[in-house]
């Protein structure tokens, strides 16, 4: 009823499953690394934007006060 035992097929199956698991783990690691890198770049970009945004009005105020003094 169960059919003949095929240990070679079982061994092949285990090898392939291991390979698939390794590929999955590698793909997940790459995905995490890419998302981490992207997040960091976005954070840096936002920080730069904020710094420029903070400085611009200060420069504008400084320039106008210098103009009024002169």
């Amino acid at each position, binding site marked *: 009823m169960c059919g003949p035992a095929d240990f070679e097929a079982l061994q092949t*199956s285990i090898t392939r499953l291991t390979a698939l698991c390794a590929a999955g783990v590698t793909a997940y690691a790459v995905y995490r690394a890419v998302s981490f890198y992207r997040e960091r770049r976005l954070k840096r970009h936002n920080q730069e934007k904020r710094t420029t945004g903070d400085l611009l009005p200060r420069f504008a105020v400084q320039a106008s006060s210098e103009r009024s003094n002169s």
Partner: protein
Amino acid sequence: MLDYVRRILVERHVVDLNMTRRKEAALCAAIGGGGALVFLFAFPRGAISTLMHEVLHLPGPGAGIALIFGPFLALVALTSFLSSRGKGGSLIAALTFGLSYALVVWLFRIPTNPKGAFGSILFVAAVALFGLAVESVMALARAFNQPWRCLLAGAVANVVLLVFYWLAIFPRTAGWVKWKDIPLLLGVCLVGGLVPGYIAWTVSRRFPRTLAHEQKE
């Protein structure tokens, strides 16, 4: 006639043919097709049977369905359900799984275990029934929160698949299951269905729902 049916289905929102829905359907079909290829690659003929009966010494028929095939299918169906917001994701994935499995086996003349009738019409029917069971449980068990629904859907769909195999496929290919083996196999089947439910839920939490975000926008 076909146009009339299509119009009725779309008007009554039974079938929503907008772009996101199509994308979701394509994603579910891709998960199903990919799952079939992975299953074919990972389990060559005789591997499941040998593992179940020679290594684990489980009684048959049905141990391979309860512990390997059903859980794998549950993982495919639940992952596609959770990666799409609309209804019918798991049914699409299950149907694509069955059809692509049958197509690849027929095209490349891949030998499969005749006991499981893999690639036959009954096999496709069993897989479709599995998708329908997942879909029904996920729709009916709204009282539970999502992880419990996933666990329940995996377990119920696995039992439905095993019972279908016992009643419709194994009597033609391997013989009737013995009464004394049923409790053990059903227990194995329930546990085998719970595990992929949990895995699918964990996986869906880890990966963002790209299509769901698009739908929100």
